[in-house]
């Protein structure tokens, strides 16, 4: 038996690529949730009300400091038995996300949905910090100047602060997007058939693990490296524009 079987490699590639599509979908859904959740968390953290700010801070610190894998297990095994009496029962199917079913026993999401939601939650804690750094980076003088010309809070945010804060945070967010993409394989542990899941299932069936895992690694390399070069390129372009 040869060490590397190209024929076998060709056999499994279609399945691996199918898995890759699932991986990309999970990344897309995950980053969407993370970007939105992060914004809410960042704003909450800056709130003057301690009742809002402290839980937000606590959530951010706790989620950032604990393993995504454990959070995944938690969501996967705990949600189905998490019955919240106050929550009305409903059943809805979202595009890309899947079915969300809330009944008397608990919250039922498909494995994909659970995984994507957990990714979004985990990375939401990171993006919250990125937003915060971006907003804090805006010099005091900008806020003061806006007050001096009597800009409304809404306009201050939308016309002065955010347009300056967002370009600085885009590279950091880009890097987190790439990190998330590389962590999607963890979803294989909660039965999601993304690329690592496909590789594993082939290993279990055919007992050849060299080709599946090597090719999976290659797939990530091939996507991640150009992506990070792109992020670095964007970073430099933004740097010139602001200089």
């Amino acid at each position, binding site marked *: 038996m040869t060490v590397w079987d190209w024929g076998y490699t060709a056999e499994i590639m279609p399945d691996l690529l199918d898995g890759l599509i699932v991986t990309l979908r999970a990344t897309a859904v995950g980053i969407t949730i993370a970007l939105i959740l992060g914004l809410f968390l960042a704003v909450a953290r800056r709130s003057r009300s301690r009742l809002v700010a402290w839980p937000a801070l606590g959530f951010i610190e706790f989620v950032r400091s604990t*393993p995504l894998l454990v959070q995944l297990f938690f969501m996967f095994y705990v949600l189905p038995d998490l019955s919240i009496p106050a929550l009305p029962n409903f059943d809805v199917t979202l595009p890309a996300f899947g079915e969300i079913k809330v009944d008397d026993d608990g919250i039922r999401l498909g494995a994909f949905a659970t995984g994507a939601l957990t990714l979004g939650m985990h990375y939401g804690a990171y993006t919250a910090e990125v937003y915060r750094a971006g907003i804090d980076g805006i010099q005091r003088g900008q806020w003061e100047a806006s007050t001096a010309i009597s800009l409304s809070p809404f306009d201050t945010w939308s016309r002065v602060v955010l347009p300056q804060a967002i370009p600085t945070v885009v590279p950091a967010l880009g890097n987190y997007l790439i990190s998330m993409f590389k962590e999607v394989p963890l979803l294989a542990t909660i039965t999601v058939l993304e690329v690592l899941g496909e590789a594993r299932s082939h290993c279990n069936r055919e007992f050849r*693990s060299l080709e599946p895992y090597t090719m999976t690694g290659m797939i990530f390399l091939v996507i991640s490296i150009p992506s990070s070069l792109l992020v670095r390129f964007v970073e430099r372009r933004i740097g010139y524009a602001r200089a």
Partner: protein
Amino acid sequence: MFDSQVIESLLDGARVTIQLTFLAGLLGTALSVLSGLGSLSAWRVVRGVSRGYVEFFRGTSEIVQLFWFFFALPLLAPALPDFIPERIVRLTPLEAGVVVLGLNTGAYGSEVVRGAIQAVGQGQREAAVALSLTPFQRMRHVIFPQAVLTMLPPYGNLLIQLLKGTALVSLITLSDLTFEAQKLRVNGTADAPTVYSAILVMYFIMALAITAVVRLLERYFSRGLAIGRGM
């Protein structure tokens, strides 16, 4: 709910997690310094090796690497030349964990080290040249000590990243904290919410400990320096 068996198992797992974090942290730190210094070397080959190392590990998925080192690497044994013992490719779960986590931490840490060294003012280097210190002496006595202070906060984050990464070894049968929790859930000794919440809190406490240690180191290395020093 929290009977002694649960607590004992979890503490056993925590011990393995801490051991793994420590060993991988050691390896990662050594690699960070070597690769960080290498990226600034005058020799193009050394710079290239460092860059290749960093790009490779930043571009691949940690869990995939782990699976590869543990499941796939042994299969290369038949292709090894005779003078290399097969043991090298048959890693125990602990070894695979230390190697993969160490290599990853080293790759990200390399950039932290490099950035910190570059942040030390040019004037410092010039003053060291004026004293006729060799390049090695310049780095050892003047540049690196000043870079360390800048390195510490981001490096602390990397160590927490490392801690979180140790949970992955539960998937390659190492009895770390996550593995023990899984075991307890699967054989019914504890229920999911309890055991997962418990280990989440335990990881959080360990992360806080790392942050505290890094803060202490920061204080030690800034003795004598004013905040916002401009020398």
